[in-house]
């Protein structure tokens, strides 16, 4: 059996959903987009155009939930399927989006540049437990208006894995065009989604001009979205887990209503990035245990609605790749996986999503691998009847070369990569007695060195460059930074 963890019973889920619907019915949601408001009005929402408010009835919510796909797939830049967001299947993606990279050489968190991003994309290509890229940090060496699309551009050129990304403005044109270039046509992109676009409501119950336009554009192009509602318990949400869940549910349902009203059947992930608010430090800890409780619980609500899910759990608020980083990331990844969240964001991330560490990404890849083994659970493998094997054991005095051992060794036992130290002390000392950070750093360099260039068609690559250069010129940049790092 697949091990599963549950925090909510059906009665509580139903009550949370009822309360969320009551908020949407009575208070409504603010949407800074006249086109969307009119559309919702046409579909039965009670709309106040000057106030930019829409009250959503049960009927309009039910009507939106009906065509919502319960699953969808992602495909890499070459068109091969990499993700199946269905059932309890788990996939990891690096957390996003950080403003800094934690520089291993100096120990400083600094602004990243193009060369850092290319190293990141190459590294993700070699991490087998991380199925997708995310546009995990923001290269600071390009003009602000193209910083969002430029990340995607580099990702598509230097790694074949699909991309979880997002926009910083209401204009999705470049992000859309880059995907169309890779797939060759709108139909091709619809058939084989390449990205998931994160779109964030603003608490409480508001979709900004940029976010609502992003939802509209993604739906029109059938580009998958993940709704990233971010209640902050005690500050921008009720302090209780249940109260935060009600708010998260209402905000996410309002996103579903928007997407499915624009284009019924738009693929989407029931996602989020909630956090508690730490009243001592005025921070939003992603590694707090209550944050994880909210994450797991809303995933359960998404599953109750028969929707694929996403969550931000496998990350830490530590400033370095230290014990706190390991413990928070492990706990979050384990809980998220046991809950069956289809897309778990977070690996690589530190410091309240402000920093990304390549070394942490390597360590987190191992954590993800361990959770996959955990999810395989326990199953008998020629273990019954036990007698013959134990007779063999007594006869041979050990089972190291027994057929049973050799047949099941690699299925039963997950062997992590070199970052996880399992040597005895003497062997560890012989290898230089190095810390996990140093070992991870060596692994980062090895994987980047061994990274194969993308197999994406060169003509397609040239078109991507042309489109990005055009966008750069519009943003006042004559040329893009060098990419020969």
């Amino acid at each position, binding site marked *: 059996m697949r091990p599963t963890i549950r925090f909510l019973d059906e009665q509580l889920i139903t009550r949370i959903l009822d309360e969320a619907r009551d908020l949407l019915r009575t208070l409504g949601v603010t949407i800074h987009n006249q086109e969307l408001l009119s559309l919702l009005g046409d579909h039965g929402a009670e709309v106040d155009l000057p106030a930019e408010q829409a009250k959503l009835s049960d009927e309009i919510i039910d009507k939106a939930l009906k065509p919502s796909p319960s699953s969808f797939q992602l495909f890499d830049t070459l068109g091969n399927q990499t993700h199946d967001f269905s059932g309890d299947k788990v996939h990891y993606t690096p957390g996003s989006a950080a403003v800094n990279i934690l520089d291993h050489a100096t120990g400083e968190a600094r602004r990243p540049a193009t060369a850092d991003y290319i190293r990141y994309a190459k590294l993700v290509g070699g991490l087998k437990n991380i199925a997708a890229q995310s546009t995990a940090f923001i290269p600071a060496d390009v003009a602000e208006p193209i910083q969002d699309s430029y990340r995607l551009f580099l990702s598509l050129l230097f790694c074949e894995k699909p991309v979880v990304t997002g926009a910083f403005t209401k204009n999705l044109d470049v992000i859309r065009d880059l995907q169309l270039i890779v797939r060759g046509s709108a139909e091709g992109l619809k058939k084989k989604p390449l990205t998931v676009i994160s779109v964030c409501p603003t608490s409480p119950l508001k979709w900004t001009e940029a976010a609502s336009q992003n939802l509209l554009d993604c739906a029109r192009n059938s580009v998958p979205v993940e709704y990233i509602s971010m209640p902050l318990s005690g500050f921008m949400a009720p302090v209780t887990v249940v109260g935060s869940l009600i708010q998260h549910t209402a905000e996410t349902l309002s996103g579903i209503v928007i997407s499915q009203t624009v284009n019924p059947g738009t693929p989407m992930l029931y996602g989020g990035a909630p956090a508690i608010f730490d009243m001592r430090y005025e921070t939003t800890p992603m590694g707090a245990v209550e944050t994880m409780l909210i994450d797991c619980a809303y995933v359960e609500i998404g599953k109750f609605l028969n929707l694929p899910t996403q969550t931000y759990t496998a990350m830490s608020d530590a400033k370095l790749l230290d014990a706190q980083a390991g413990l928070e990331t492990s706990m979050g990844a384990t809980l998220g996986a046991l809950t069956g969240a289809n897309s778990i964001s977070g690996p690589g991330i530190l410091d309240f999503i402000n920093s990304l560490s390549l070394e942490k990404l390597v360590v987190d890849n191992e954590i993800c691998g361990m959770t996959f083994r955990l999810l395989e659970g326990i199953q008998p493998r020629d273990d019954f009847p036990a007698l013959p094997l134990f007779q063999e054991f007594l006869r041979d*005095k*050990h089972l*190291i*070369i027994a057929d049973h*051992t*050799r047949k099941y*060794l690699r299925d039963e036992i997950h*062997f992590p990569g*070199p970052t996880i130290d399992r040597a*005895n*002390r*003497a*062997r560890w000392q*012989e290898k230089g007695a190095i810390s996990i950070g140093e070992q991870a750093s060596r692994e980062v360099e090895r994987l980047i060195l061994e990274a194969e260039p993308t197999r994406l068609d060169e003509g397609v690559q040239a078109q991507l460059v042309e489109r990005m250069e055009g966008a750069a010129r519009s943003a006042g940049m004559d040329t893009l930074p060098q990419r020969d790092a």
Partner: protein
Amino acid sequence: MEPKMEILKDIATSLLAGNDKKIVEEVAQAIEMKVPTTEILDDGLIAGMNVVGKKFRNEEMYLPEVLLSARAMAAGVALLKPLLIAEEVPSRGKVVLGSVQGDLHDIGKNLVGIMLEGAGFSVVDLGIDVPPEKFIEAAIEEDASVIGVSSLLTTTMSKMKGVVDLVEERGLSGQVKVLVGGAPLTEEFAQSIGANSYAYDAANAVEKVRELVGEG
């Protein structure tokens, strides 16, 4: 490739695959082809085992595969043994092995024995709870060049010094070296009791024995 080279290469390949049945056939074939016995041993079996050792160190092979190769090695060596004796080929070195007095654990020691045999050494296993005198007597009787002493307990590791001291006392320090190992041991401890060498695991024990017999 000339037939001689080919059969030696086949032996090394079968060894890597841990295929003892095939090894026996191929070694027999090589003997029939009049390939010199030492070449079958050195360029076929031991050459293959060296690759196995390297792959184990690089984590490309795991213990079960290594032990299968070791078993295949032993099967091949068994065929060669009468010839090696008849041709008076000097032994690569014999190791007397045992768990120290008071210690009833033998898993680690057994593993060391299997790995040493796999590497082409002769092993005389004295079992568990072996008093110092027995180690020394066996070493003299078997003309062994290495005594391997194992201990799993912090309470028995102190007894290891007895073996080292007795080798010294009998004036055997020149010809018999003492290698110690076991979970609670450290290099520092080994030095403190005057042991010639310390191995931190079974694969390491093979390397250390090689050093002690001058192959390192």
